[in-house]
């Protein structure tokens, strides 16, 4: 198909003659003894940036490695975590219906939430115009579990079995009260879209642990209802494009356009990519645009994924007992349960950051029913994932994170009855948990007041959470920076403190 081209590339475009001179200069350097000396000097001067264009003769492995190579002086200290799975519960799970047990509320059913508790906080437009803000105690029963005696409601029976591996953060706080800004804030450290997500920062800072799959993969539960998710949440922002999260879809093709078109056997694809690489190199020499390099590495990654993705998305070698543990949904590709199982497989293959999104936690009304049905979908697989990672010894260096973008209010949005209530968004206090690499197991940090409204002890702001997460990967959040539009940016911008009390 394309094996009769000349190896020496010459353009007939006048504008590109400058490039050809550069090519000649490189050949000159290569072929003369002076060139050897100059190259030696070049390397002494740390000139890998000067000669950063990919060598024509590099193997595909070398091309990928160029991006994986550590040029940033990282890690700053010995990491505890090697990989992470972030179970994002989109919508804002109700903390006082799941983990933040508030027994005093049951005596206050229907009473007005005291002004002293609200202390003048602005509410959303959804409940801000309500004439009354009646306290809605949780309909769920709470019990203490495990040696750590952690409180869990009966909405999450499976998770209650693994509480001794979890590290609850009960005093989470965010700045944002609405979904899009809050979820963007949680994933990128800023409420406006355009900053790199956590996974992109880790990919940029630490590189890849495997050659066949992307460093950062996103899985979204299928048929999700509620607030929409958008790709900027796993976007690379201003970081080089190869660090963006790759979304695996549910259904036949987890990654679109990987399979070969009909009637094409793909045999000369390697050949085609090599030649395309040569052309792209020419273009890169002309324009010096790093995005050309990013594109080249993505072609190589796509080529590798043609074999690696079908392999990893094939769950047929999993035992029946595994499917049983993750629940019967796990046989249905695209569900949260199947994604949990797939996530474990991806982590095993050396993917550094797997991000799950599960929508549907936005219980403005019918809160008890909503919490119950979302728990039913997520509780068993989440607990199974913890158990599975633990028995395989992976929890030792895998960080598991569970949480949404904010919490929910103690007062009822809409009408309050004994069995039913709604809850509005609440940014001032919510619960998240972490497990695994480097975080204290069977531990609970932070406290809220009797209304789960204000944090009274050990608050953890989103920026602090980010700083701690990076710390677990051996990264000092103040030193992982990227210069863009004239200033250096960090995941935590100018904020954030590592919460050392959470660490082992």
């Amino acid at each position, binding site marked *: 198909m394309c094996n009769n081209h000349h190896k020496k590339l010459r353009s007939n475009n006048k504008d590109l003659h400058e490039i050809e001179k550069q090519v000649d200069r490189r050949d000159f350097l290569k072929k003369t003894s002076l060139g050897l000396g100059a190259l030696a000097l070049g390397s002494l001067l740390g000139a890998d940036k000067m000669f950063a264009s990919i060598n024509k003769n590099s193997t595909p492995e070398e091309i990928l490695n160029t991006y994986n190579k*550590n040029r940033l002086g990282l890690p700053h200290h*010995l*990491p505890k975590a090697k990989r992470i799975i972030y179970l994002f519960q989109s919508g804002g799970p109700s903390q006082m219906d799941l983990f933040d047990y508030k027994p005093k509320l049951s005596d206050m059913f229907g009473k007005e939430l005291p002004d002293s508790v609200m202390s003048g906080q602005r509410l959303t437009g959804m409940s801000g115009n309500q004439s009354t803000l009646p306290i809605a105690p949780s309909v769920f029963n709470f019990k203490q579990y495990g040696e750590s005696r952690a409180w869990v409601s009966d909405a999450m029976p499976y998770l209650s079995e693994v509480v001794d591996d979890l590290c609850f953060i009960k005093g989470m706080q965010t700045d944002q009260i609405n979904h899009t800004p809050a979820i963007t804030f949680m994933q990128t450290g800023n409420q406006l879209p355009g900053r790199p997500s956590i996974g992109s920062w880790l990919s940029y800072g630490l590189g890849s642990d495997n050659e066949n799959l992307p460093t950062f993969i996103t899985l979204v539960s299928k048929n999700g209802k509620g607030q929409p998710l958008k790709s900027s949440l796993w976007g690379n922002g201003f970081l080089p494009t190869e660090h963006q999260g790759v979304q695996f879809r549910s259904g036949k093709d987890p990654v679109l356009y990987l399979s070969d078109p009909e009637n094409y056997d793909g045999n000369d694809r390697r050949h085609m990519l090599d030649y395309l690489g040569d052309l792209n190199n020419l273009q890169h020499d002309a324009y010096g645009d790093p995005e050309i390099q990013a594109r080249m590495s993505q072609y190589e990654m796509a080529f590798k994924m043609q074999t690696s993705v079908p392999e990893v998305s094939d769950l047929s070698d999993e035992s029946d007992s595994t499917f049983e543990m993750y629940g019967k949904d796990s046989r249905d590709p695209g569900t949260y349960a199947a994604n949990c199982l797939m996530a474990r497989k991806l982590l095993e293959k050396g993917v550094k950051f797997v991000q799950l999104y599960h929508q549907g936690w936005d219980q403005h009304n019918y809160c008890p029913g909503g919490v119950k049905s979302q728990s039913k979908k997520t509780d068993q697989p989440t607990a199974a994932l913890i158990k599975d990672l633990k*028995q395989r*010894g992976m929890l030792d260096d895998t960080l598991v994170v569970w949480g949404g973008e904010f919490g929910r209010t103690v007062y009822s949005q809409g009408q309050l009855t004994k069995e039913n209530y709604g809850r509005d968004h609440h940014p001032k206090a919510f619960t998240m948990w972490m497990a695994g690499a480097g975080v204290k197991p069977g531990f609970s940090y932070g406290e809220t007041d009797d209304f789960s409204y204000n944090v009274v002890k050990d608050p953890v702001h989103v920026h602090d959470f980010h700083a701690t997460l990076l710390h677990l990967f051996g990264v000092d959040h103040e030193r992982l920076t990227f210069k863009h539009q004239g200033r250096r940016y960090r995941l935590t911008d100018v904020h954030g403190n590592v919460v050392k009390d959470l660490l082992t």
Partner: protein
Amino acid sequence: MENSVPDFVLFLGRFHPLVVHLPIGFLVFAFLLEIFSRIKKNPVLTTAIPLALFLGGVSALVACILGYMLSLSGDYDDNALDSHFWFGIATTVLAFVAWLIRIEKIKLSNYKKIQPNIAALTLLVIVISVTGHYGGNLTHGSDYLVKYLPFNTEEKTELAAVTNLEEAEVYGHLVAPILENKCISCHNDSKKKGGLSMIDSVSMHSGGKSGAILVPGSANESELVKRVLLDPHNEDFMPPEGKTPLTEEEIAIITYWINSSNADFKTKVANVEIPENITTIASTMLGLGANNNTVALPTVAKVSNELIASIEKEGFKLKELVFESNLFEVVLAPNTVVEGKENQLKAKLEKLLPIKENIIWLSIENNKLTDENVQIVSQFTNIQKLKLSENPISDNAIQHLLKLKNMTSVNLFGTKITSKSLEVFSKMENLKYAYVWQTNIEQKDLEGYNKTNTPKIILGM
């Protein structure tokens, strides 16, 4: 005064430390030529002496002028400067005198048996040494030279060691060592960069050119803290470029001192409130109740890029765990060694022997690893995390692992080990977790096993 000095003069002045080495070289060389020409009885050598002396004199003169320019910056203590100043001039004069004697413009008769040119050269070498020494004291501080002198038993006025944090003096035990380490070399009585000395409480209170450095009770307004918190690229950032910056912990301690004890120099920890994070940092600094949770990282030899490449050729992936620590995570991807080719593994593992001390984490999962192979692994003595799951290894392999004294976790799921290994695990001092799912170890084997004993044995759930 310093404001009246043009920048250009200061610019030239900074070349003084560079130029001073020329006269030292020339003059010492002249002296050596004189000696050798006498020992070897080779008069040819002597012809170079006048030139060496002349160049020495001229370069000394230039050094003096530049030195004077440097002194105008006002960064140096007047007393220490004086000696260096006059000895420097003496050296220059003496160099010219020695030159004149040598070319016989000055004729002196021998006094007893001492020849004047030898005498002049000897004196010159002595004077230049003294000058150099005073100069060194100005730059590095007067205790720099002999600090590491063997048998130097004279310790600095040491505070009594404390056994608990309450007894420690906030300044004396916690803050002073930090300043000593990171600040004093430029801010002492003989070298007062920016007019500031931090040698004692009096000089610290008097501050520097830009005023007081301490605002008791308010670290954020104190120049001492402000300067270390600036952007490292800022011109005013301290310590200046090339010196080790203060760590987060050190800054926390200084902040705590200024805020809680109002930058007092005598307050003890017992008398002020101490937050939890400061307790941790301070205890570590004083070596009290050290955090024994983690095994310290070893210092190891550098691994060359060629060596890394040759190991990666075998299918291993190496990842440096801390930048430039030469400590590595080594992973052999599962199924790299396949059935029928089991004997390859031994050769591969032997390739790791040159970096055996550099391996901190090792993962050889599902690669047909045998008990015999584990013998090689047991030579990697710095391993902290070891993953050998899904390999046909037995209790014998675990015996070998006893050599890995730093191991904190071991993954053996899917191996053939039995409950016999439980006893071996408990002999491993640092081991915290042993993963033994899908082995011959069962729940009932753990019944006799004391739960409070480390390590934790993790079976499936």
